[in-house]
């Protein structure tokens, strides 16, 4: 037999029917026999009713056009900022997420067919032999492109020369104009 102190904290969930059917039936059984819990349930229902007296509001007419204009402005800024490579990466990433979503929603046959297609693509890419001369040319042009990452790399190299001078250079450090000054000695 359920006790009032166990029933009362459950009553709001009971009103919302947020419990298993057998619990609902147990509580119903208790409510038929307990006027105080029944009254409490009625009050909770009444509070709900009062809350529902509030009329819903609607957005104003210019809400949607305003919002779409602001979203379009974001797209323009993004397009200017995001390079072509990153856009391709993003597209790949989203199609991958889309694939995962499709697996979950459409089931096994779809997953098998897509996996086979991916496998075929991977195999053909692996079998394809790139010509090394072309690849080296590409590296040259890439190295000339001043991207942020490469700038960072260059900086890092300079710092590492500064802090760890090679042993054979340290002997003629003062004479060679190419060797950077050791920051510890300078201080």
């Amino acid at each position, binding site marked *: 037999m359920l006790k009032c102190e166990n029933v009362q904290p459950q009553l709001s969930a009971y009103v919302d029917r947020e419990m298993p059917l057998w619990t609902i039936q147990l509580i119903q059984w208790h409510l038929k026999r307990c006027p105080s819990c029944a009254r409490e349930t009625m*009050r909770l229902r009444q509070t709900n009713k009062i809350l529902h*007296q509030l009329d819903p*509001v609607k*957005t104003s007419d210019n*809400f949607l056009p305003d919002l779409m204009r602001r*979203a379009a402005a974001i797209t323009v800024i993004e397009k200017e900022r995001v390079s072509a490579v990153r856009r391709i990466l993003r597209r790949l990433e989203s199609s991958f997420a889309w694939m995962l979503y499709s697996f979950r929603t459409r089931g096994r046959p779809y997953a098998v067919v897509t996996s086979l297609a991916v496998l075929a693509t991977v195999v053909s890419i692996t079998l394809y032999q790139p010509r090394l001369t072309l690849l080296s040319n590409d590296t040259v042009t890439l190295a000339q492109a001043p991207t942020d990452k490469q700038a960072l790399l260059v900086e890092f190299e300079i710092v590492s020369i500064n802090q760890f001078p090679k042993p054979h250079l340290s002997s003629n450090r003062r004479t060679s104009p190419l060797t950077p000054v050791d920051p510890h000695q300078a201080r």
Partner: protein
Amino acid sequence: MRTSDEELMMKCRNGDMSAFELIVMRYKDLITNFIYRSIGDYHRAEDLAQETFLRVFRGANRYEPKCQFKNWLYLIATNLCRNEIRDRKRRNTTYLDDLVPDSEEVSYFELMQDVSQLPDEVYEKKEQQIIIQQTINRLPENQRLALLLVSYQNLRYDEIAEVLECSVSAVKSLIHRARQNMKTLLIEIGIGESSHAKV
């Protein structure tokens, strides 16, 4: 067949503006209502609803279809509401003048004078609505948000748990306490039945 929110979001990730527009059309009234009831200021609620959708748009490429879109949307709106509630508490302002959407910059008294011209039942209804909204505003932040999500947005407890980032049992107790507080506050101001009334 209706395209699911999740599918629309995947299109949105690829920069499909019409998919985004559809999402907004589906949820703009629901989200505006939710924010409006949480902060009690219609004009600010529209601003924050726009901000919610812009965040959805900006975050579209981070959206993972494994989580239900609706919950993600309410999570964003809830976080904006929380910030607004805290800001208001800090500034200690209550925007009574904005309780009714079709009034521009009217004070509570002007508002009541304005509605006093209306037939009695309509006047009473408006007055009652203002009082109910004020009572909602008096609930603690989390109780208020949980109660609004269950009462007006018809979210299930497990969905609310995801939105409020807590456990289902925490949601259960939040909603129970919110209703009990609401009940007491309403009885205090003379709406609802007193504890000694007959069943």
